[in-house]
């Protein structure tokens, strides 16, 4: 029973981690609370659904398609709600991305209808027994995709030129620009990567819960925020670990304490972290005035 719950917790945590990675990348580079991120996640789920349902794509193509569509959405977000907005007013980009959130959510409601849609069974359901644990092929698939994506991303951030440029920009825009980093391009790439990963997370969430709706973005966004904070603002590996951690905490509290208290725990963690350890469990990459 406990092993089973641990696996469920890791599954939930993996999707939290994928959402939070995008948040924390974007926060690191722009110091912006990117509100529309949850809606990008939702649109990724719908893109995957339509690719499987009407495009006849297999699940890998659907994942790739959702990733590309969401990355394009990230580009649109930069040109519409980040670049044209005044930089010297802290609330302006926050509000413009809130505007984008409202547009995306209601566009989805308008075009796709407000109800929950069933996600087609894209992977054959098989059960494997390993010692005391029973794990399904769907669970292996989701965990496998999520973890390999995180590894690739970690490698990208730590060991490539673009990754170094992203880290430099997160430290300081002016210094990075002086050192020859094209800051505008870095911001664009960061949004593309963050949004693309959120798109994959959306499809994985659709497979896991076998149903998606235009309103799934908001709660995903809030959970992503908590994870970002828990891992330390701007800290990508921190977000990965914190995501898995929050997933475990939620599943275990739901299993052993009660399902309505589950959200209470995550928000209590949010407040405790804010009060006693605002740099997160693993330290913020981008020290900010608090």
């Amino acid at each position: 029973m406990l092993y089973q719950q641990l696996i469920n917790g890791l599954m939930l945590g993996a999707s939290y981690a994928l959402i939070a990675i995008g948040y924390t990348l974007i926060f690191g580079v722009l110091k912006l609370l990117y509100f529309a991120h949850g809606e990008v996640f939702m649109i990724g789920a719908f893109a995957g659904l339509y690719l499987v349902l009407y495009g006849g794509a297999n699940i890998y193509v659907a994942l790739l398609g959702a990733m590309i569509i969401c990355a394009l959405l990230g580009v649109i977000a930069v040109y519409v709600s980040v670049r044209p907005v005044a930089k010297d007013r802290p609330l302006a980009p926050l509000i413009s991305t809130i505007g984008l959130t409202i547009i995306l959510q209601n566009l989805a409601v308008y075009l796709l209808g407000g109800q929950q849609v069933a996600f087609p069974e894209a992977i054959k359901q098989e059960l494997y027994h390993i010692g005391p644990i029973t794990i399904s092929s769907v669970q292996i698939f989701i965990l496998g995709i999520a973890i390999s994506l995180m590894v690739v991303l970690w490698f990208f951030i730590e060991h490539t030129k673009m990754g170094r440029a992203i880290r430099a920009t997160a430290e300081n825009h002016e210094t990075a620009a002086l050192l020859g980093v094209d800051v505008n391009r870095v911001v664009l790439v960061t949004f593309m990567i963050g949004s693309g990963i959120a798109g994959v997370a959306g499809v994985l969430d659709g497979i896991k819960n076998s149903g998606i709706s235009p309103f799934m973005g908001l709660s995903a966004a809030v959970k992503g925020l908590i994870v970002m904070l828990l891992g330390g603002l701007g800290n990508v590996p921190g977000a990965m670990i914190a995501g898995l951690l929050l997933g475990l905490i939620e599943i275990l509290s739901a299993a052993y304490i009660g399902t309505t208290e589950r959200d209470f725990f995550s928000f209590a963690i949010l407040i405790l972290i804010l009060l006693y350890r605002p740099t997160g469990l693993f330290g913020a990459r981008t020290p900010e005035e608090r």
Partner: protein
Amino acid sequence: MFDGLLDGYTRSLLIFAGIHMIAAYSFYLPYKTGQVSLGQAGFMAIGAYASAILTQKFGIPFAAALIVGGIAAGIIGIAIGFPALRIKGIYLLLLTLGFSEIVSVVALSWEYVGGAQGFRQISFNPFTLEYVIVIIAVLLFFFARLERSSLGRAMDSIHQDETAAEVMGIDVVRIKLLAFGLGAGIAGLAGALYAHHATFMDSTTFNIMLSVEILVFVVVGGGSTYWGPAFGAVVLNAIPEFLRALREWLELIPVAWTNFYPVNRVYDFLHGFLDFENAKRLIAYGVILILMMIFRPDGLLTRDSLRRLRLPRWKSRHA
């Protein structure tokens, strides 16, 4: 008071606009000291639940319950404000958001206030509009006085530079706490008014989107002047009604004027676009928000624009 003048629809519209305006002022007061809260819906919920418990379970008259609701929210506000003093910016945003979510989780799991079924059959207050008008009048008077008082200037200076304000001898802690607590109290009043007008609420009534909307009222109206929150709430509540009216006017145009190509296409497009449908209305709302932040990030009303309005009088006095 306005029974003969207003039909039910207009009356309800004015009430919601008024409640939004009060909520906008509840955001504006802490914002004046630089504290940005995304938890005003949580304080509204506390005012709403506290007052509804009093009127429904203890039979206390609405006027008293309203005041107690405001005070309860204010006390919780000060309790939240104490730890919130230490943090700023995005951290405060997240703290208030988390607080507001905890309030809704408590509302969801507490059976005494209805739990998942929601709080039902709250007594209807027929004089909500009158209450709303009186409270807004008091708030406007209060903020007009505050603007020119030493307390108001101290708040502005904290907003601009907290360290500098402290060096000047301003008691930053006391003033920030006062602003946060009073703001929460005002939000509690708005919540109590809402509960006794809508007569039903549940854990999703006072959600994050409401807190976001309250913030948007102030930023769109203009956060640098006390007329901003009222103006923002009026404009943003009026836009959907305006779109609706536009569609009705469009239908008044004689068919013969528009029934040829390409005018008919344009007409059909506009007519379809102005369809009073929630999703479309909200899309328009989102577009307006983005355009506002691009072209007028300080809000519709700023201190400068107000000063320009008064310019003629100024000139005559000094010339």
